[in-house]
């Protein structure tokens, strides 16, 4: 059943984190969550905008020659680095590790993760974003959901995230029910 393509390099923390993030996205999809791609889309747009600026500057310089293109090249280079800065700022200050945003049954959640360099611990945060912005943080070492050959094991991960989601979403339900009843 395990797909050889999905084997993860156990000595690379970035690879482990990315594989875990991807697995969580799949788990949430299988549970009926609809993903909201707006964060990712803005990031992609900023990134590709800077690539287009670079390509345009390159093309113009190639066709017109260095001397004639110089003022435009200068503008292009500055614009490129501004866009790149915005791109980096978006990732660092807006996304802040968020790799999934989605909703189900009217409840929106946001999931972010982090893993320190060379550390075997995966930090996971689930935040409820419809009303309360209550978030639940937890950390587990990667070896709790990776087997020794490098394949991810879904069930412990699924159990873990189920627990985290219910700790932020269910309490809203019970408080809503309590409101209804009173």
């Amino acid at each position: 059943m395990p797909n050889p393509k999905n084997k993860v390099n156990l000595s690379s923390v970035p690879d482990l984190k990315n594989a875990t993030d991807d697995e969580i996205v799949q788990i949430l999809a299988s549970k009926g969550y609809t993903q909201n791609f707006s964060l990712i889309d803005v990031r992609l747009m900023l990134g590709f905008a800077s690539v287009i600026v670079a390509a345009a500057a390159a093309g113009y310089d190639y066709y017109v020659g260095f001397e004639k293109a110089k003022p435009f090249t200068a503008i292009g280079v500055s614009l490129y680095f501004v866009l790149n800065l915005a791109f980096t700022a978006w990732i660092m200050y807006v996304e802040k590790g968020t790799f999934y945003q989605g909703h189900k049954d009217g409840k929106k959640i946001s999931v972010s993760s982090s893993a320190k360099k060379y550390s075997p611990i995966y930090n996971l945060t689930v935040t409820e974003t419809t009303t309360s912005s209550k978030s639940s943080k937890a950390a587990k070492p990667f070896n709790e959901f990776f087997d020794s050959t490098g394949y991810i094991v879904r069930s412990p991960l699924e159990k873990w995230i189920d627990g985290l989601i219910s700790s932020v979403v269910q309490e809203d339900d019970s408080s809503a029910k309590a409101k209804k009843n009173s």
Partner: protein
Amino acid sequence: MFSTFQRIQQYCGFVTTVTLFLAVAISVSSIIQEHYFTDIPRISMNLQSIDVRFGKPHIGYNYKRQEYALMKFDLEADLTPLFTWNTKQLFVYLAATYPGKPYANKVVVWDAIIRNKEDALLSLSDITADYSIYDVTGKFNGRNATLSLEWNAQPYVGLLTWNKGSERERFAFPQLTPAR
């Protein structure tokens, strides 16, 4: 396999960073040494003779027939203080500067490459200039000129530097030697 690959990658990155730092440190320290800690070289030069003739200054199809000047000179220079541990070579040259309308002119008449400190003590007499001087206009018209000794220090890594001695030898271009 994965972790070996990563180890190799990180090792290469480390080596690159260290080399970069080393190169920068060497360049900066030798510049500081050149600027603040070297003595001024002693130089003395003397123009023995200068002769202006008419014809092709050098063999070659691209030279026009015009006035050109040949010189003989003596040169004594102690350039040893210019050598630092980052000096790969010293390109030394004797240049003649003279005015004109509309061009200000400067021509190298002799050069030498010094590769170590031991060879940097120059004591040359009766040297014929390697290169003759010829002007853009083709004529000298008895203009005044100045000789100066200058050098370019080439490092093993880092910034190239140029400098010159303060001694000047003044002369005037003589009139054309009539053809015999």
